[in-house]
């Protein structure tokens, strides 16, 4: 076990865990931030997507020992009250079915829009194909991303 000080959603947090503990489980079990989801544990489904210095990463395969001073953003810290343009677009399109994968989808989409403010369909396919939606809400996810982009989706 080791002590780590990490920056999560703009706050400094201290945890005592094994260095190989994935950020996913640090967030969920230690910090009680349940929005980041467990899906596969091998970076294949995207349910656990968070931002590390603004980049979308799979927290299930990112050990806490690799975090260092990087700033972490989770779905809970993406905005106050769900007001990020991507979250708002998700509301307007009423995207979710079961909803389980959607936090990861939103984190991937918001990271993409911060780099590509006006994505083409091909951009969306390329950047969102790491996130699985078993309910098949892909057509709505695409619409919501387009809608967020129209409104200036990077929130910055």
């Amino acid at each position, binding site marked *: *076990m080791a002590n780590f000080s990490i920056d999560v959603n703009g706050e400094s947090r201290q945890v005592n*865990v*094994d260095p190989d*503990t*994935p950020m996913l*489980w640090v967030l*969920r*079990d*230690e910090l*009680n*931030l*349940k*929005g*980041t*989801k*467990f*899906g*596969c*544990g*091998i970076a*294949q*489904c995207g*349910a656990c997507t968070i931002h590390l210095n603004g980049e979308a990463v799979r927290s299930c395969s990112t050990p806490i020992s690799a975090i260092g001073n990087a700033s972490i953003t*989770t*779905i*809970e810290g993406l905005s106050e*009250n*769900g007001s990020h343009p991507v*979250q708002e677009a*998700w*509301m307007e399109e*009423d995207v*979710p*079915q*079961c*909803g*389980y*994968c*959607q*936090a990861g989808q*939103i984190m991937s989409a918001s990271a993409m829009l911060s780099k590509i403010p006006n994505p083409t369909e091909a951009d*969306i*396919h*390329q950047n*969102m*194909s*790491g*996130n*699985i*939606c*078993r*309910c*098949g*809400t*892909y*057509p*709505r*996810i*695409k619409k919501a991303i387009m809608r967020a982009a129209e409104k200036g989706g990077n929130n910055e």
Partner: protein
Amino acid sequence: MTVIKTKINRRSFLKTSALAGGGIVIGFNWGCTPADMARPEASAWYEVNAFLTIADNGEVTIMSPNPEIGQNIKTSMPMIVAEELDVNWEDVIVKQAPLNTESFTRQVAGGSQSIRSSWTILRTAGATARKLLINTAAKEWQVDPSGITTENGVVKYGKMTMTYGELAAKAVMEEIPEEVELKDPKDFKIIGQAKKNVDLDGIITGEPLFGLDFKREGMVYAAAMRPPAFGTKLKSFDDSDARAVNGVSDVVQFGNKIAVIANSTWAAMKGKNALKAEWERDGKLENTTDHDRQLLRMLDTPEKEPRRNDGNVRRAFANADKVIERVYEAPFLPHNTMEPMNFFADVTDTKAELIGPIQTPQWTQGRVAQLLGREAADVTIDMTRMGGGFGRRLYGDFALEVAEISDKIRKPVKLVFSREDDMTAGTYRPASKYKFRAAIKNGKIDGYHLTGSGVNSGNVTRQNWFPAGGIENYKVETHNLRSNITTGAWRAPITNFLAIAEQSFFDEVAAEIGMDAVQLRLDILERAKNNPVGEIDYEPEKMIGVIKLAAEKAGWGNAPSGISHGFSCYYSHNTYVAEVAHVTNASGGPKVARVTCAVDCGIVINPDAAINQVQGGVVDGVGHAMYGDFSFVNGTPQASNFDKYRLIRAKEAPEVDVHFVESLNDPTGLGEPSLPPAGGAVANAIAKATGNRLYKIPFIKEEIVFG
């Protein structure tokens, strides 16, 4: 207008106290943002019946009785109650009801039956409360109740008005009305209007809504090791390395499984991976290659008593100008809900408290009680939102496991499956095969003979559905291959592949006899409608309706250059669906670009959510037809995570246009029916685009390069 005797449902109105004691309520959520932000906070709530509670400020809490699996009934069921109660949807707060068999019937998510089976119950619950409020106002004002009207939570008589909130305290003292009137569907104001998912805010902000998110102070975590192959059992194990993992507190054997108990999910999983177990054979170690051979042999074997045998099939084939015969094959499939199986249990000397994602809370309650030797009344089950189900969460094995673990360690514990555990623990869509034969005489289908076979599948046919009744000589046979591999319901059980095979076959028959694929189906349906051969369990008229609508909306027969159309239709879960797949065939190979879908599901409760369900079913159907692949070698599953098991992704998903038949009929199922026709529409469009017929799932293993 329909008059309903409330006596038949009286039980649910009288035993309301059971609701309060039924267990905790999870996932408390605002139905919507209250329109009037200046409204005073509720200071008292009055329970009118098991479904609804009215506050003195006019807010209404509506309980959603059934488990929410992504089918959106947590929004649509309360909409039905609110419609008959006649309140503003903005004043409604929705809560997930606990399991309460005294007050609610069929608290199940399965078979696409939640809305259909509860339609009248939900309407009656709302209408009875409305009538009660009217009667209360009538007494208050000393007027005839028949002259009283309601509008959006307000009772009116002439110029006098009172809100439901003002009446609630007195209303709960009044007699429950013996008879209520239900609205004419033409007057619906909430039903038929798009309402947002009541959990939408929580989903997009990461609130802890799901089973995996549930946490109790003092709870420990468990990960379990199960036999690696069907046909094996635990021989011995060494847990010294597991116990050395930081955070691991205990290792317990239960049956043929071993649970590692720890203070975090990660420690429990690490501990499980550090277990060294030896397994020994206690049954056959089965192989997919053997199943394939046995299932194919069954297709050439007559059933002792066919499921159905109209006319004289033998003569029809003997006299045929031409016989068309094709075999279609599909593998097992895991469900792969995005939220892996998990459940919480706290078993003490006096009670067993279970909380988690479950499609069958009542059945599971009984099984847990039996397992622990308790009374069902001492077992409570509370339902969280589910990260998908698709049939997997019908089975409750995970709830039984955690109950057993908690009983052994006497601690509140959360059992979490890894993806590998989830994909290899069992309960798969059965592998199945079909042989279709058609006897062609004078350019028409004179004889039809279907033989099906499946692994632990029961009857793999639907002998009284299309094309039953539409073909003079008609025979259907089925065979079941017994296996120690566990199988179960998987979204649209049986029909999820039967439809692909059947609809591919009709397309091929149409091509062979030089007939339009849509017209061929319409001709059979006309016969079934006007002069059916024997009894049938579907309505040809409704099938004709969706076929014509889909053909019209897709531009059937007028595909633009570069696009190939494929047609398919299917009836399941009391709903009729026709689909046209639009496939492009550019340099990369064929690609499903779009699917046009026509649906007759009766009254559509929540149109935008209904479109979402249909789109999802189509994407799911296309995805599993294209990529679904799962096999066994010596009883061992050959894929255990998404690196080896392919699910459809964003870049492969088609656009889906959805068109509902306008209807005033009672609503039918919607969670499943759009899935069965999808794979057939794709296969038929690909055949048109490439000339290659697809006979085996997954399509990507066939000799075509896909785009």
